[in-house]
């Protein structure tokens, strides 16, 4: 920890004296995070997924639903019966697995990322507003909400889907609606925990406006908590949307969403196991990267708390 901080001292020749620059809490976490090679691998994988989600139509060799009737259920290219045109084989309808997986990244990774981002913005905004305006600091409210939020997100999403009907868009709306109160709750708790601290009181005594107090004084100190809860929410959202797709309540049949692809592979999993293995493996790697990044962030956060 200590040597890294020394590195941060700006030693420019033009400066008359060496000013010690204190890195912000988020920067400290990032420095800790970068020291973890596994976490960086996960981070790069997520970056790769982000790239694929944006540019899949240009990267993928074929369209997601393009059928090759002469090449049904071909195994991956490295086996004896494989065709080099279809690197990861084809499914029972003769669609290229690699292209479907690449197109599916948008639905299985891009869409949940977007949903969690939107619900995080709304939830955090409301949470801050609730922390400042509602004066109830009673911990009974907190315990009550803790119990209420113990109902799993998938169950709530299922009920919302039952009300508004199945489909990818509705599943996305359901997940978003479930995530917003959770962000609200976490943000409110974090802000309420910070409010009585000395540095906040000092700023208040300086006469800063509420907006400044929240954005420049409190926010930098709670942002790390929010980042960690963001990764948790992202992991849950990816899993829930894939699970809804798997149950046939999210993305519908021809869509290359990985959960829906797994559901379609149920019947052919014995004869062409790669149709089942590949989407699951992609989902597994995605979730693992999100979890590793989240875990590394959490431990970086803990180290930062212990050293300061």
């Amino acid at each position, binding site marked *: 920890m200590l040597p890294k901080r020394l590195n941060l001292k700006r030693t420019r020749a033009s400066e008359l004296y060496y000013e010690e620059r204190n890195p912000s809490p988020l920067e400290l976490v990032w420095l800790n995070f970068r020291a973890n090679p596994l976490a960086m691998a996960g981070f790069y994988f997520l970056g790769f997924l982000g790239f694929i989600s944006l540019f899949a139509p240009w990267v993928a060799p074929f369209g997601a639903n393009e059928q090759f009737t002469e090449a049904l259920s071909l195994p991956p290219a490295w086996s004896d019966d494989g065709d080099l045109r279809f690197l990861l084989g084809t499914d029972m309808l003769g669609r290229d697995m690699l292209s479907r997986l690449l197109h599916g990244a948008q639905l299985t990774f891009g869409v949940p990322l977007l949903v969690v981002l939107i619900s995080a913005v709304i939830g955090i905004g409301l949470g801050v507003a609730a922390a400042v305006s509602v004066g109830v600091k009673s*911990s009974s409210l907190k*315990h009550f909400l803790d119990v209420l939020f113990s109902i799993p997100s998938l169950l709530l999403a299922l*009920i919302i889907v039952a009300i508004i009907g199945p489909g990818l868009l509705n599943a996305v709306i359901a997940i978003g609606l479930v995530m917003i109160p959770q962000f609200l709750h976490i943000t409110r708790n974090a802000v309420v925990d910070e409010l009585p601290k000395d540095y906040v009181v000092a700023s208040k005594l300086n006469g800063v406006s509420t907006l400044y107090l929240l954005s420049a004084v409190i926010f930098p100190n709670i942002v790390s908590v929010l980042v960690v809860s963001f990764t948790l929410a992202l992991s849950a959202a990816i899993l829930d949307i894939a699970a809804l797709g798997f149950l046939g309540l999210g993305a519908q049949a021809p869509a290359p969403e990985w959960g829906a692809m797994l559901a379609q592979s149920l019947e052919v999993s014995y004869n062409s*196991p790669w149709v*089942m293995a590949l989407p*699951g493996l992609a989902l597994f790697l995605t*979730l693992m990267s999100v979890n590793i990044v989240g875990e590394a962030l959490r431990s970086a956060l803990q180290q930062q708390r212990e050293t300061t």
Partner: protein
Amino acid sequence: MNRVFARQLSLLLITLFLLSVFTFSLSYWFPGNPVTNSSGVSTEHPLFTEIAEARGFQSHIGHQYIAYLQHLFQGDWGLSLQDNTPIWQEFKLRFPATLELAILAMAFALLFGPPLGFIAAIYHRRFADHVITSFSLSGYSIPVFWLAQLSILVFALVLGWVPIAGQINPLFDIVPVTGSIFIDIFLSDSPYRAAALLNALQHMLLPMLVLASTPLVLLTRLTRSAAIDVLKQKYVKGAYARGLSRSEVFFRHVMPNAMQPVLRQMGSAFNLLITNVLIIELIFSWPGIGSWLVRSIFERDYPVIQGGLFILATLILFANIMMNLVHAWRYPQVRQEFYAS
């Protein structure tokens, strides 16, 4: 402790009240007629007006809610829209099946999760720790439906060790009395009870293991990090300094203190398990609440969705409150937190 008990009980009652208001309002939110949505009787049914009256639909909404509660407590949960069977009867058979699976899986996770975590903590940053950590990290990220598919493919289809799905081979002709397959076998007068029990165990093995996997790795991770924290404490060093043996230090000082934060998260392990029950039961055709609820969403069977949601949410709330109580009972320092002010 009494104060904690009263607090948690009132918490349970308030959340249950809110839950019942929510499930009641679902019959308005679902598409279609609210009377049909809550009772399962279509508008063409000859007794429709009587049933609507019994459920208070001629009167204001407060009256309707009270009528809903009355029906709920009397066990009149309406009829299923698919096959017109009373939901309460169906529920009585399905709930024990789910509970049986969930309890066995939770017991399995509790039996193996914390010990693995302790082993990893004792051998911190050594080989055993790395193995357990990577195993738990991958187990935490594996989507449960994929794990179920893979295990069916490997253990049921390729190796043929266990049956693919279901609760028991139907040839055994066990009459479902309670819904819980083990109790049913015990109650039946079939001459092949031992064989039936073996068959039921084989059917149970795969869903139970897949269901246990997620809570198991969660408990392993929690225990590992908690035990690493405790092992750093000065009282552990002090215990060694007083000349206590390794096992004495471990069982008397490390283990009880490390289990405190683990017990706090036990509720979330159970929630994970219930989430996975929904998916696992569908894949393994287990006749429980989870597959019933998911299938009723496909079929737009609104009375069943209402009932199933109420049961699962109640189960989760109840389990969480119980965990809180056990936590406060075993660890006095936690009570302070629950007293609140």
